[in-house]
């Protein structure tokens, strides 16, 4: 499971970096999205991968922490997803504005 996740993160991050370095704004935004997937999976992985264990204690019990998944990275991932989504949306608006103002989708606002 670890190897699958690691390869997945690597593929996401690699494709993301390649796309971010491309000259078209659409490629850049897709690259940023892929990179944020990689980062989110990475955060999730930092909580150690375990299947079939709950992250929250039952009310009124004093459970053994070893029997539970780490809830903190899951909370961090949620926050990171929301923030990443919002900032990507913001960038999308700018991208459209740049397209309208400069008549090109090049990241420098001009061809060449």
């Amino acid at each position, binding site marked *: 499971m670890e190897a699958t996740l690691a390869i997945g993160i690597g593929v996401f991050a690699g494709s993301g970096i390649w796309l*971010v370095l491309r000259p078209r*704004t659409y490629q*850049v935004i897709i690259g*940023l999205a892929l*990179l*944020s997937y990689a*980062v989110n999976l*990475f*955060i999730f992985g*930092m*909580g150690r991968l375990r299947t079939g264990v709950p992250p929250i204690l039952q009310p009124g019990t004093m459970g053994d*922490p070893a029997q539970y998944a780490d809830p*903190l*990275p899951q909370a*961090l991932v949620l*926050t*990171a997803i929301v*923030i*990443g989504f*919002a*900032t*990507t949306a*913001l*960038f999308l608006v*700018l*991208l459209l*504005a*740049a397209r309208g*103002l*400069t008549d090109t989708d090049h*990241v*420098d*606002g001009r061809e060449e």
Partner: protein
Amino acid sequence: MTPLVDHLIVVPVLLPLAVGAFLLLFDERRRSLKVALSLATTFTLLGVAVGLLMRADAPPFGAGAIGVYRLGNWPAPVGIVLVADRLSAIMLTLTAVLACATLVFALARWHRAGPRFYTLFLMLLAGLNGAFLTGDLFNLFVFFEVMLAASYGLVLHGSGTARVKAGLHYIPVNLLASALFLVGVSLIYGVTGTLNMAELARRIPAVAPENRMLLEAAAAILGIAFLVKAGVWPLCFWLPTTYAAACAPVAAMFAIMSKVGVYVILRLFLLLFGEDAGASAGFGGNVLFYGGMATVAFGSIGVLASQSMLRLAGYSVLVSSGTVLAAIGTGNSAAISGSLYYMVSSTLAISAFFLLIELIERGRDAGADVLAVTLEIFGDPEEDGLHEEAEIGLAIPAAIAMLAGAFVGCTLLLAGLPPLSGFIAKFAILSALINAAGIVPASSWVLIALLLLAGLAALIAMTRTGIRVLWVPGEAAIPNVRALEMVPVVALLVLCIGLTGFGGDAMRYMEATAQVLYWPQEYAREVLAASPQLPGAGR
């Protein structure tokens, strides 16, 4: 200490956030209401920041010199804490001062250039204040994003192709830096099991040797994210363009944004990798030192090469960041206190300069600077005709005289010449480097030479620009400057004069600040005090 006073710490975050959200409810036509509310908020923030500054000036580790605010009253390593010590208080005050100046400046005309200016401005303040106050790494990320999201909007304020083009570079660079930030934070959590800065300072000395490499990798990735924001060479190419494209009040406010990166590095470097950090002590110090020096060199070359004043100011931001980072990298407490003083003085100066440029540029044609440089090199074919006008008895208009006076002030501050605070700041750093115990290493001499050369470069560039723009008679129409716009510029410069006049007190405060930074374990004890220790919290 009453509980009500304790709540003062959370005000710099909550107040602008709440007022900024509230202002969204109103239409853009209710401008007077928005102006009144935002002015009231910013000046209240200034009052609160000064209050925190006074409160933090207690004897170290005595009666609550470090103010700790537990959000939701959760104990420290579990919940998020806000920590207001001297360093945070200095940064809060600096932010509030700049905010007051730039907001008043914006009221003259710029706030009408686009929608939702006040909300974005207040959100930027909330993000900045939060980043300076928080004692938790992930919370720091959230406040960074609040600040950046507001800055994305502000950089586009006034619209126009140049701003959109600059934003097209600024936003992806910062999104990538945020991705690195997250990777670093989660790695640190994976290794140490905590994100609380004070708790981290405690746990890092005890990290197992096989995990130490992971920890250092995490710190390096995190450091890159902050260095991008601070504008360290070679991560700084976005900065001068963006700052030059943003409208004047926004650029003046951005002068503090690059200092957020510097602040976080200063705090985390000494807290996590201080002398107590075991095998990792001093990790990354060399990178800061040489990176800072490279930034100073690059910034100085940029300052000399700039044809427009806005780019000159942008490169001055780099020189200022680089100087502080190099001083942090020396690990010398006296140099750090000097660089804190330098940071305050140079940020005020750069901010005043950004505002001033807009006033000066107003009377000039676009592209006049480029033309002027070309003329200097190739000569002006019409030069003979110009000199026939009688120059004797040419009165300098009051507006030009005011602008020129402020320009001279900025020059003295940026070049570090006496009698203003820029000189004291540079002198403090240089004397700390020379008076360091033992033989002064060659690298310190290189830094000393670089700092002096940077001052010279700033002096040459500023003098050249000043002569071209303000001294040459009859070139420009008299700019239409309103008193409302001149007041903030003068106020910022007067503050720098105040920093000179009360230089002794200011330096004493900075020295106390730097000393506290060298005792991370005491800091950790103070922050985690009154919180029960959790058994078996480590992994």
